[in-house]
């Protein structure tokens, strides 16, 4: 177990290292951030001063080494535009993104699992066909457009829900969250639903396909032959088998959801890291872009580790110590 985790951590660090190289040098190619800070009457000397201030006068590889050194200390540099450490900006805004993503995940499961279950149990009913059709649309439609339609319907036409921003916040265990206030929920509803659509479609399809496979298995027959009540057969014996692919896929997708929050946050002006990234891109705030990427990739790697462990808890056949994992 310890060896497995150690190996995964080493792999993860390698991935991270490669990513820092790619991101750092990639971002370095673009634009000249000095222009951003220089006023029109700025002379050569004043330009140079800005360059020195930002550390841009050194060769790229030196900048990279400095960057790596700082990274090791958890310092990802200062945002050009905000003048504060990039990481503090990210930490400040990340709870909003996480809240949005978790809300989307919960919605995907709460709505997707029952729908997929129904479609799997009665594959030929027209309701099931409608559910599958909707899941196909959920797969296909770019989520930003769904967001637009929702704003048009629920904000502009019906006026039920606010179109932009995050609602009232309350502090729970030191984290400011919005889902515990009515206003917060009203703000959260549309972005979270929009963001959850893709996952929801996936949950529906995985649940349906998985259930249809599981229901023909001998072990379900065995449970039924023993008179185990149907709710228990479906809700536990079948469910636990279904959860394996669902947890795996959702776990892998969750990182994607954080990334896709970029789109949702832009539409609904949700003050999370995604919106911050788009703003940073538009002003070429390099340290902030790099910090965001490093942050997201790190999260990904950690997430994958957590999924592997979770997976082994759900599926006893894949015990970590077994080595083959």
């Amino acid at each position, binding site marked *: 177990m310890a060896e497995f985790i150690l190996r995964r951590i080493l792999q993860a660090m390698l*991935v991270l290292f*490669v990513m820092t190289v790619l*991101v750092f040098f*990639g*971002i370095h*190619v*673009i634009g000249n951030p000095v222009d951003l800070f220089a006023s029109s009457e700025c002379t050569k000397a004043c330009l140079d001063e800005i360059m020195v201030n930002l550390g841009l006068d050194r060769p790229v590889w030196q900048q990279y080494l400095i960057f790596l050194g700082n990274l090791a200390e958890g310092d990802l540099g200062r945002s050009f535009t905000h003048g504060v450490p990039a990481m503090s900006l990210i930490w400040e805004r990340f709870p909003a993104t996480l809240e949005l993503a978790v809300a989307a995940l919960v919605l995907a499961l709460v709505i997707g699992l029952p729908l997929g279950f129904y479609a799997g149990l009665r594959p030929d009913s027209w309701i099931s066909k409608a559910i599958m059709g909707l899941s*196909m*649309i959920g*797969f*296909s*439609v*770019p*989520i*930003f*457009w769904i967001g*637009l*339609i929702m*704003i*048009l319907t629920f*904000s*502009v036409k019906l006026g039920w829900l606010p*179109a932009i921003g995050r609602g009232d916040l309350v502090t729970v265990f030191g984290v400011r969250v919005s889902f515990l206030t009515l206003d917060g929920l009203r703000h959260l509803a549309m972005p979270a639903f929009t963001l959850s659509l893709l996952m929801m479609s996936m949950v529906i399809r995985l649940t349906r*396909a998985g259930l*249809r*496979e599981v229901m023909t298995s001998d072990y379900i027959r065995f449970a039924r032959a023993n008179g185990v009540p149907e709710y228990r057969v479906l809700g536990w014996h079948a469910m636990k088998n279904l959860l394996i692919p669902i947890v795996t896929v959702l776990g*892998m997708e969750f*990182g*994607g959801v*954080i*990334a*896709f929050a*970029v*789109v949702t946050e*832009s*539409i609904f002006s949700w003050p999370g890291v995604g919106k911050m*990234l*788009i703003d940073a*891109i*538009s002003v070429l705030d390099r340290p902030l*872009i790099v910090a965001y*990427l490093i942050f*997201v*990739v790190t999260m*990904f790697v950690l997430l*994958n580790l957590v999924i592997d462990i979770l997976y082994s808890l759900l599926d006893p056949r894949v015990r970590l110590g077994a080595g083959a994992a």
Partner: protein
Amino acid sequence: MIIAERPSRLRAFTRAFFNSPTAAIALCVFVAMSLAAIFAHLIAPQDPYDLRSVSILDNLLPPGEVSFGGMTYWMGTDGQGRDMLSAMLFGLRISLIVGLASGVIALAFGTLIGLIAAFRGGWVDALLMRIVDLQLSLPTILVALILLVILGRGIDKIIIALVVVQWAYFARTVRGVALVENARDYVDAARGLRLPPLRILFFHILPNCLPTLLVVATIQMAQAISLEATLSFLGLGLPPTRPSLGLLIANGFDYLQSGRWWISVLPGVVLLVLVVSINVVGDRLREVLNPHLRG
């Protein structure tokens, strides 16, 4: 014998495909939309790229309105007075070009990498598959976003970005199929006959990869169109002078709050219909071509 079988297999495949009315309709819709895009310059009432034909006075007209010039805007006009119908036809063309081009290039490149990985094996395979894994583990939107930040705007740039996020799917698929086929008896037999490796590759293995590749390519094309729209919406894809469907939707976003829905909603509907029809076709292809997945 194989040659004699081909036509009947194709016919059986076609019949199986059209057995699903949904898939048949989807295919027709897709073909109709492709034709509309190809002949956009002939059927569009206006050239949306030609600023002389666009009158700013006609801006923000709702669908069906008649302009001062006596022209009926069936789909309304946008903020600059462009005819939405024309803009959408040309936007559709761009979306399709982007989807098709990136799909074909990614397919070619991915197939090449996949075949190299499958046939070289050893460390080449291991290295290539690590790269594929890395690529697939990162969310497409993020990779594309960063690439576009670095590369800048432009139709060629967005195609590059889309190829980068797509090739790995093809590579992994081809490698998987090729490894399976490579272990089959008929390839052994071909080797026993001392056929040259390239011949085995092109005439025996690649044709067997085609069904799977076709399915993956269809799905990826839908993905690409959708992703391009999303990136353009974020202001990162195409230049505003040649709007794709995504950019048209983005342009309309600003007017949405004031109730001018058509600028965003109509291109969105076109995009939706396009992507859904491609996906339905892809789904059906998978059902027909891969009996294991039939459920």
